[in-house]
């Protein structure tokens, strides 16, 4: 009986334990299975069944959790990807805006033709250049719009481009109003994999202003050439026609003196001398003017030249003057420069000649030919120990026919340094002088270096 009673009480406890176990599972706690008594009765069977279910549920719960986690991970990845995508979208939008800006602000016209040269595409901006809208142009042959004077040249250029020699072409296209407009095109042939021509693609730009500038420049150049020719003609006239009457004046005065000198008194002879001297000087001036004008009109192209040889030639030409003045001339190392050699000889000859000529009485001239400069230019110097030049006269010495000294002291027409200046300027350089009165002068001139020097 006791046993039965016990069994009864025992039975209630077990039922409670089972209920508690179910409640634990229901609350998500799968860690404590229901105690199985081992009595192999219905309650034990129920407890064992519930425990098995609990295990199954725990297993599924774990799997579910794992899956959820995986899903969360994926979601996270997706979010990250989404953020990146957003960023990329922003960047794309920005670059698209930039691109649109570029295309909208660019004045170049994009175009395409088929293999026959018929226009298949042209950007709307074409209306700014040709007044035509794309629909007026598409479907028409490109050649139809080219100025007839340019047509042959452009046909040749297109053949060249199709052959693969890419180069821009400049020509006139007809605008809607029938006027013409200078454009430049850069085209590229489009071919299929067999090399068959499909058409051309390219960019067309407005070069009207550039062309007008070029034309103005060309006209200025032509005018300049014309005026140079006129100057040369003038120089020829000066050398010939102006000399003739002068020669007559001076020659016949001399002849007069020769034949009738006996009948003339000293004053008359003196007058004749002045007249002859005057015409001789005038003849000299005319010759010098000729030399001056020929610097520009008779110049030779610049070529790489050994400046040492130039200076040597100048010194050789001055040999007698160097001996007469008992001068010493020293020459630094000289470079190779791109010059008109003949004019350079004249330049050095004039400057070295001057350096000796304006010497201090009783003092043998010492002339130093030196070299300096920078990355972009050579600087030549000709220094002397002569009388020097007053500071307020430094600029004046380069002006044509300006003389600083009375003829009796230092002879000359005042052309030498003006010719020097013209020669240096023709070479794109500068010339100037530094001087201390009574101590000497140093003439400087520069010659630009060429890229290959």
């Amino acid at each position, binding site marked *: 009986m006791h046993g039965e009673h016990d069994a009864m009480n025992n039975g209630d406890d077990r039922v409670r334990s089972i209920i508690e176990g179910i409640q634990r599972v229901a609350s998500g706690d799968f860690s404590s299975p229901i105690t199985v008594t081992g009595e192999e009765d219905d309650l034990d069977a129920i407890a064992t069944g519930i425990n098995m279910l609990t295990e199954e549920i725990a297993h599924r719960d774990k799997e579910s959790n794992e899956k959820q986690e995986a899903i969360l991970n994926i979601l996270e990845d997706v979010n990250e990807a989404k953020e990146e995508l957003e960023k990329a979208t922003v960047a794309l939008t920005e670059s698209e805006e930039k691109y649109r800006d570029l295309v909208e602000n660019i004045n170049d016209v994009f175009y395409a033709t088929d293999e026959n040269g018929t226009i298949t595409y042209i950007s709307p901006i074409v209306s700014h250049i040709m007044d035509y809208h794309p629909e007026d142009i598409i479907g028409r042959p490109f050649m139809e719009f080219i100025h007839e004077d340019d047509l042959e040249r452009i046909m040749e250029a297109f053949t060249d481009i199709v052959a693969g020699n890419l180069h821009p072409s400049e020509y006139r296209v007809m605008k809607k109003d029938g006027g013409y407009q200078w454009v430049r095109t850069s085209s590229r042939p489009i071919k299929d994999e067999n090399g068959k021509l499909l058409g051309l693609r390219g960019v067309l730009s407005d070069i009207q202003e550039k062309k007008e500038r070029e034309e103005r420049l060309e006209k200025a150049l032509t005018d300049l050439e014309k005026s140079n020719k006129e100057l040369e003609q003038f120089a*020829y006239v000066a050398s010939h026609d102006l*000399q*003739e009457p002068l*020669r007559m004046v*001076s*020659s016949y005065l001399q*002849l007069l003196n020769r034949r009738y000198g006996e009948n003339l008194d000293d004053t008359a002879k003196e007058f004749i001398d002045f007249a002859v001297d005057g015409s001789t000087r005038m003849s000299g001036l005319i010759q010098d003017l000729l030399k001056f004008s020929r610097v520009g009109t008779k110049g030779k192209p610049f070529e790489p030249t050994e400046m040492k040889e130039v200076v040597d030639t100048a010194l050789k030409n001055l040999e007698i003057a160097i001996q007469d003045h008992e001068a010493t001339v020293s020459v630094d190392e000289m470079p190779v420069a791109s010059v008109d050699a003949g004019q350079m000889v004249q330049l050095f000859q004039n400057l070295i000649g001057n350096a000796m000529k304006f010497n201090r009485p009783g003092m043998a001239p010492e002339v130093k030919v030196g070299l300096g400069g920078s990355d972009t230019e050579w600087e030549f110097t000709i220094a002397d120990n002569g009388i020097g030049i007053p500071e307020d006269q430094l600029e004046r010495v380069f002006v044509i026919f300006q003389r600083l000294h009375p003829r009796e002291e230092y002879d000359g027409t005042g052309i030498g340094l003006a010719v020097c200046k013209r020669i240096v300027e023709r070479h794109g350089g500068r010339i100037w002088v530094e001087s201390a009165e009574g101590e000497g002068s140093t003439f400087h001139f520069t010659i630009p270096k060429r890229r290959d020097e």
Partner: protein
Amino acid sequence: MEGSDRKMDILLVEDNPGDIRLTQEAMRESGLPITLHVVKDGVQAIEFLEQEGAHEGVPRPDLILLDLNLPRMNGKEVLAYVKSNPELETIPIVILTTSSNDDDIRKCYTLQANCYVLKPIDFERFIGLVRSIESFWLELAALPQAADTT
């Protein structure tokens, strides 16, 4: 050389009367036995040399003094004519001009001028020049005899 035995003939082609007279005076002072023939343009020069028209029977000159700036036919044309004519080409031609133009000088030598001389502004030097020309071309230089055209 028979230079000093006979009178020499010089043809001066010059259009400026002042220059003609000056040359005459200079030759007079030099004292050489010279006959100076003067023509005033290129066309007359050719007629003289070809002994045509008014110049029938004139002697073949021993020397030609030729100015460049001439009416009707200029000095270079006369030069080219003479130097391409087998009967005349051996006559020495001295260009006597005021043109110091390098192109002129070059062109004249290319056309076989024998000498190119600038007229000096100084009369003394002019006399000296004329004397030098005469003594060099008529006394010093050996020249071929004229082709026998008689």
